[in-house]
């Protein structure tokens, strides 16, 4: 009996000791850098596709401000925002893969401005093991996907911008290639997803996620685009609709789709508008170029460092990183409510 009590006391002591060790570690580091003893934790919630650039930016930022620890949390863009608006968690920076989500979900209570800082492009990623990898190109990709033994994946349009954008690309392909069966053959036949024409626009009304009912022999659907990467790596699927940045960062081969359908170019914004996805929760999204948005939410605990982080993202260094990782920066960045910006960020938009 005594032995157990001794053991318990030892365990508690060990736990306390660990706490001490951690603390001294922190103060030492901070002491070396001549800043305050407690580290500031800067919370950055960002879209999954921003994981790689955020890693680089975090490294630079922490080197520059040794008193700050940047904690990044990646998730789907909508979920990222919901962590603030519904779970009421404090975030210092929010970065979304669809800049329109910030005004739609956060204004005016949780945020008041959005900076558009980078863009992306939908591609069709594959590996050397993918079926017909040696035959596929930008002209015949939809014919290859049509073959019955070819499987491909996209993320859930209800959860993930990359998911509804995949649907838009496929529907735009019908218009662009003048082949009205592309979406039907590739998706509609194998699931409950279907575009209907309404006064010149094509609308996909999403069923609830549990009713998408995909034929899993043809389609692989996951909540988020990053979850499908293992599917492509293990050969579960042959092709995957995903952002160029992700394909590039994971060293996948990829087919560049025509700019008329890959949602990358402002030049074709009017054409993109022809396709609309209505999510199961009622949110209506029209096709538009993929542009990333960033904001500092009202409940940020460290607005000063958050502003410095945003400066880094939209400044020269950030632009270089985004370019290298396949997310071309907007030069110059744009903002919707310039008057509501914090003073330190206004200089980028004068």
């Amino acid at each position, binding site marked *: 009996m005594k032995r157990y009590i001794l053991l318990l006391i030892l365990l508690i002591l060990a736990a306390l000791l660990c706490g001490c060790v951690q603390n001294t570690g922190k103060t030492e580091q901070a002491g070396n850098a001549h800043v305050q003893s407690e580290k500031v934790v800067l919370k950055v919630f960002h879209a999954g596709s921003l994981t790689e650039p955020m890693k680089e930016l975090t490294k630079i930022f922490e080197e520059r401000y040794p008193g700050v620890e940047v904690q990044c949390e990646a998730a789907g863009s*909508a979920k990222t925002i919901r962590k603030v608006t519904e779970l009421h968690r404090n975030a210092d920076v929010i970065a979304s893969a669809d800049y329109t989500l910030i005004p739609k979900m956060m204004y005016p209570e949780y945020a008041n401005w959005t900076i558009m800082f980078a863009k992306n492009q939908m591609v069709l990623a594959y590996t050397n093991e993918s079926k017909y990898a040696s035959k596929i190109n930008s002209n015949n990709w939809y014919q290859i996907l049509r073959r019955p033994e070819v499987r491909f994946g996209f993320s859930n349009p209800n959860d993930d911008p990359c998911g509804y954008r995949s649907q838009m690309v496929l529907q735009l392909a019908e218009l662009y290639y003048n082949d009205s069966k592309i979406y039907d053959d590739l998706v509609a036949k194998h699931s409950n997803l279907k575009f209907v024409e309404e006064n010149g626009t094509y609308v996909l009304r999403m069923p609830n996620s549990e009713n998408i009912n*995909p034929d899993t022999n043809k389609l692989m659907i996951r909540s988020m685009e990053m979850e499908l990467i293992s*599917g492509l790596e293990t050969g579960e699927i042959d092709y995957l609709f995903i952002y160029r940045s992700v394909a590039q960062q994971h060293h996948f081969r990829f087919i560049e789709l025509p700019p008329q359908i890959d949602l990358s170019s402002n030049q074709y914004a009017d054409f993109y508008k022809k396709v609309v996805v209505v999510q199961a929760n009622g949110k209506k999204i029209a096709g538009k170029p993929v542009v990333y948005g960033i904001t500092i939410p009202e409940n940020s605990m460290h607005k000063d460092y958050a502003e410095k982080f945003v400066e880094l993202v939209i400044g020269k260094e950030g632009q270089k990183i985004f370019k290298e990782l396949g997310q071309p920066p907007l030069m110059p960045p744009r903002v919707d409510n310039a008057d509501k910006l914090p003073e330190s960020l206004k200089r980028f938009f004068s």
Partner: protein
Amino acid sequence: MRHSFFLILTAFSALIVLFILLPIAVTISTQFYNPGFAQAMRDRAVWNSILLTYYAALLSTLTAIIFGTPLAYILSRYSFPGRSIVEGIADIPVVIPHTAAGISLLAVFGSNGLIGSFSPVKFVDALPGIVVAMLFVSVPIYLNAAREGFGSVDVRFEQVARTLGASQWRVFFTISLPLAARHIAAGALMAWARAISEFGAIVVIAYYPMVAPTLIYERYISTGLSAAGPVTAILILLSLVVFVAIRILLWGKNVSRSER
């Protein structure tokens, strides 16, 4: 002295029970005012996913019983070289992060995996995938409980039966197994419960068909807490009912551990 002993016992116990109960009580009580709750109760998809979850967990638990019981018996009765290694292996799933477990399972049961490549059964995005994910995370719980059960059986009973001429099979099925039955049942119940709660590993290998934890997650990200809450409450309430019912069926109402 006696007084303070019970006081401290009660105080600590109350704290830990509150710790478990509070989040659950809050989740359920907020549903009384949520119009979405009645809607979710009538929602076929919700019930389908819950039934699927229970069913898959049942299959996983049965598999654990059939293949796990012999191992538990061996581990409690025989010592052999490498026994502690086998015991360690049996516990590995407990420490692996669930997402990592899912990825490992995908590597084995995926279409090009070690087993998946030749198996006529399709695992990815199908019921068997859900079952293997559940089995992987819940089998250590069953193994440990069953091993403890066999350990609690007095070996002398088995030896006496053997000297009286009973075969090893007969001894196992008429002495060891019945005497360990309560532990085994408790272990199976916990393993079943663990299987129901699994999300991380399942969502990697089988997003479809949607089990209840995936559905809850899905409702949460596509619509938000207001839609995820009711499903959560239904799952908690139903599981509570099933749990209490099984415990009463198996052990009667007020049997304390020492009396079993």
